[in-house]
């Protein structure tokens, strides 16, 4: 009889905890080991994700201000992403649908899209 030593969920949790520990302990700004953004290397422009590793490090160390400077989009996305999981866990309810449509409906998707693009443009204008 073969026993399964692990399942997908526990592997994912272990993986996330390890990543979290690494980013908590080490600042990507001080180390060459952390992956650099390929988009930045190739184009010289910051993408909407640039700075998210440093932001994660600063957030885990509760330096909200620095995290915001590293990647403001990531910091403001976190409550939104967490909200999403409330809707994911809850089963279908008419009342939930209404809020889901407000937060995650088509209009919301357009706003996310536009914000992401705008953020990329503005950060590059400010940065250069």
């Amino acid at each position, binding site marked *: 009889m073969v026993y399964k030593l692990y399942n997908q969920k526990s592997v994912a949790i272990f993986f996330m905890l390890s990543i979290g520990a690494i980013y908590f302990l080490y600042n990507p700004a001080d180390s060459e*080991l952390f992956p650099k953004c390929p988009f930045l290397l190739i184009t010289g422009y910051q993408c909407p994700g640039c700075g998210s590793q440093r932001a994660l490090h600063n957030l885990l160390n509760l330096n909200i201000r620095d995290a915001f400077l590293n990647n403001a989009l990531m910091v403001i996305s976190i409550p939104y992403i967490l909200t999403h999981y409330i809707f994911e866990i809850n089963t279908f309810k008419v*009342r939930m649908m209404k809020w889901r449509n407000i937060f*995650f*409906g088509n209009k919301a*998707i357009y706003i996310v899209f536009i914000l992401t693009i705008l953020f990329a443009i503005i950060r590059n204008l400010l940065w250069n």
Partner: protein
Amino acid sequence: MKKYFYTDGQSQFGPFTFEELEKENLTGNTMVWYNGLSDWTQAKDIPELESLFRIPPIPPGPGRPIPTQPPKTWLVESILVTLFCCLPFGIAGIVNASKVESAYRAGDLEGALQASEKAKSWVMTSFWIGIVIGFIYVLIGISGGL
């Protein structure tokens, strides 16, 4: 003008005009009442509300059950991918999320499910690309540091 109320079993919503009711995403099983009905009635049993249900009727025989919930849009996962890895893939994911929603709203469940699958594949592709690039980068970094 006729005012409608509906309930999810716990709370009661309304009054709504017919136009407002159209935006409330009722299903055929939602209990609806208006002044003149003796009791809450399933919306599908009220002929005038028939146009509210855009979900196409279930085809006969074994088929995919029609979900009451919209298919997963992968919006949040696309945002995460945009933030942590691969910009073009993340943006493609967001665009596909919008396609899932529009198709679902238009009653095109098949299209919505297809777009959802596509959004998923963008997210998964970029997730694994991100992992591989990160891994290669760390390997190069370690070997360079030695």
